[in-house]
């Protein structure tokens, strides 16, 4: 039943729900509620807020807490690490299936990895004109923190120290890490560079005492 009296009474429902009405008004409102299902329904809705409101701390109403600005980067790094672990598991599974020679397994790795969740197009880089039996190639995967680098090296002595650098289009040269080639191990190192793949011009690898270069985004070797 909606009347002017109802509207007036209705505006007292909040105070009633919060037990803020004086006796006289409370009794009058309760008499109205007896005959007004709409007001009773609304009172029920408002009354449901009382307990949640009692849990809140008014000192927290003015300031919304916010995480530190570095949290986003940490979340991205943790997920990138998780993705690498998952990829290694898949690679391990590939090797287990094959159980064959390292050369065959390497091919299997390359077959298993494409089609993963990398962002944007990944790039394959081959170092050309290398001496002797040395073979060097890399897969570059853009991700949230820069570029993930999968290095494939063959044809050098086991234990040879390798150091990888990435050079940007603006000339910036950043280390991407080091590893030692291990013959017969079957695994490959996964390195990381803070340089965005889209801004990378060349990559460099020091294999022992020799340096080799490859252009990123093109098949030709960098003559520098």
């Amino acid at each position, binding site marked *: 039943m909606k009347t002017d009296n109802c509207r007036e009474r209705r505006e007292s429902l909040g105070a009633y729900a919060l037990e803020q009405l004086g006796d006289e008004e409370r009794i009058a409102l309760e008499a109205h509620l007896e005959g007004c299902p709409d007001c009773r329904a609304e009172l029920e809705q408002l009354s449901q807020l009382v307990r*949640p409101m009692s849990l809140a701390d008014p000192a927290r109403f003015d300031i919304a807490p916010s995480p530190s600005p570095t949290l986003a980067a940490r979340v991205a790094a943790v997920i990138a690490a998780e993705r690498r672990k998952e990829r290694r598991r898949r690679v391990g599974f590939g090797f287990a299936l094959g159980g064959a020679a390292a050369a065959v397994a390497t091919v299997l790795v390359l077959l298993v990895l494409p089609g993963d969740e990398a962002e944007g197009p990944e790039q394959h880089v081959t170092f050309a004109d290398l001496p002797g039996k040395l073979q060097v190639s890399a897969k570059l995967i853009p991700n949230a923190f820069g570029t993930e680098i999968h290095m494939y090296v063959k044809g050098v002595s086991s234990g040879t120290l390798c150091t990888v650098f990435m050079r940007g289009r603006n000339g910036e040269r950043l280390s991407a890490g080091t590893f030692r080639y291990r013959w017969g191990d079957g695994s490959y190192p996964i390195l990381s560079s803070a340089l965005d793949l889209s801004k990378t011009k060349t990559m460099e690898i020091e294999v022992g005492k020799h340096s080799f270069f490859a252009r990123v985004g093109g098949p030709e070797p960098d003559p520098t």
Partner: protein
Amino acid sequence: MSAGALSKERDVREAYSAHAGELYGFAMRSLGDAGLAEEAVQETFLRAWRAGNRFDPQIGSLRTWLFAILRNVVIDLGRARAARPGVAKEGAEQSVDPIEDSLLAWQVEEAMRRIGDQHRRILVETHYRGRPYAEVATELEIPVGTVKSRVYYALKALRVALEEIGYED
């Protein structure tokens, strides 16, 4: 977002931008420690990433799903903290479901930040500070009846704001 909404890092970044603030607010309210709260948010996104293919937008929103994951993370972190030697358990027995109460408390606090200043102030003065209507009316230079009607409309606004952030009866 479609099924498998967090299967790419770009999706995680978008989800982080949209929901990390609220997730952190709830984690902070529940755990009372900024470091633990950040750990909880980080773990939430990691678990969401691992289970990304199981997310089905037809069942619920991404936000609801992330909050459900965070709730479990908060429980796990709370248990781990309680199990540590020397960590007091003050207040741990205060509620049947402390996580649920933390969520409600955070929801009300967040909703209070979303309603207008006038609505928030009238509820703070009359309900939280328990001041008489006449006193508040004098201070605000409005009739007592207006205080009463403002309380009513403030509660209605609060309810709407609560529903917007996922409050359910």
